[in-house]
């Protein structure tokens, strides 16, 4: 999804992007200037999928009558941490009805298991290719990273349809409305004759 958005190659380690675009993505968007930065950002995009507190936020969102008690009794007391998860709860309240209306998914139960994992793993996969091209990680490291991403992602998303849904959901949680472009990209990837995902159901 990220690669398609950037008009990069979809089925190779190389992205096909020019050096200026790569620099913008790595340095301006992600603040990756060297190998250490690359490892830190790429690891974070994989590790954040194991956040156990997200389940509590999702449970609270499903049980709106009791959301206060669920959040207060299960989230950490530290003010900043608590506020961080309350903010995610608020974003769910804004984003979920909108995405249901746009037919991205039918209801919240479709999202509860796949979460925003594709948004994290997917961006990580594309960024790792950028890091490889910039010389921050080797080809072996890239392949290992992509394999770990694939394995990790399959714990949540089993189909490409689930993947695109999870990616759009994650992007909406991050950036709010205006996801029409990403919804169109998902549709193209799943249905276009030229798409490498055409006729592929499972990850």
């Amino acid at each position: 999804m990220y690669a398609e958005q950037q008009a990069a190659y979809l089925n190779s380690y190389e992205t096909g992007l020019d050096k200026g675009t790569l620099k913008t993505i790595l340095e301006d968007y992600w603040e990756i200037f060297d190998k250490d930065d690359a490892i830190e950002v790429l690891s974070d995009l994989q590790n954040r999928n194991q956040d156990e507190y997200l389940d509590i936020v999702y449970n609270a969102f499903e049980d709106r009558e009791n959301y206060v008690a669920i959040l207060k009794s299960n989230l950490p007391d530290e003010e900043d941490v608590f506020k961080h998860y309350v903010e995610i709860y608020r974003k769910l309240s804004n984003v979920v009805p909108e995405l249901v209306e746009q037919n991205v998914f039918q209801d919240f139960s479709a999202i509860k298991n796949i979460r925003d994992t594709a948004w994290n793993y997917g961006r990580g996969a594309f960024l790792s290719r950028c890091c490889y091209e910039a010389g921050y990680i080797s080809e072996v490291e890239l392949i290992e990273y992509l394999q770990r991403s694939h394995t990790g992602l399959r714990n949540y998303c089993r189909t490409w349809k689930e993947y695109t849904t999870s990616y759009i959901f994650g992007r909406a949680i991050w950036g709010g409305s205006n996801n029409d472009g990403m919804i169109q990209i998902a549709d193209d990837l799943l249905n276009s004759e030229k798409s490498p995902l055409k006729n592929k159901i499972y990850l």
Partner: protein
Amino acid sequence: MNPIFLIPAVLVIAGMCFMIYMNKKHQSAKSQIDLDFERNKYDVYKQEVLAQNFPQIKQWMKGKSIDAYTSASVPQSTANKVQGVISDGINNVALSAIGVKLRRIETECFWVLSGSDLHFFSTNTVGELDEHVVFDNFRMEEATLRYGGILKSQLGVYSKSSEEYLPKTHIITFNIDGTLLSLEIHDRLNYVPDPTDILNMNKQLMTRVKYQIVGEKFVKILQDKFPNLQVA
């Protein structure tokens, strides 16, 4: 003398007679209402007024509980502030995240308390839903409340004698990640006389009373739910 010159005088006299007549009817109808007794019927009136006069609120709430409701308004200062933020192109993440645009200050607005959430609804010029903003429990716990006096936008429109019908307000102020946002809570639902009831003083007054009883309890229920909203 041409009798046509008598017409204005006749109209003035008729108008005065009509005013005296209506005033008497008003006093008579008012004396028949025991406000304290009527206040005991809060629960009945809350349901009745919602179903008969404000069904749109139920529709906007989409099945969520309605624990209390009343009219609301946007202070001019708040509207200016929000519009200033928007027109200056300042990316105020906090306000945009809760969807506050508040373009209009003269149209009907409502508050609904539902569980731990306070819902704010504003309408457009034809009464359709314009904005729906939800202030959740955690925003409520950080909010403050103060008495705001008689609704200022309506002062001067009415004579002193009808001041008793003007809404008194409380001003609730939310801290949206550092940006203060103030909105007004009315102590009654906004009453607009039905033209067909113009001569039915009893019905007009009784409707006003119901709107007042439903609205005036709102702040008390809000304060019971959120003790931080007690007014010193």
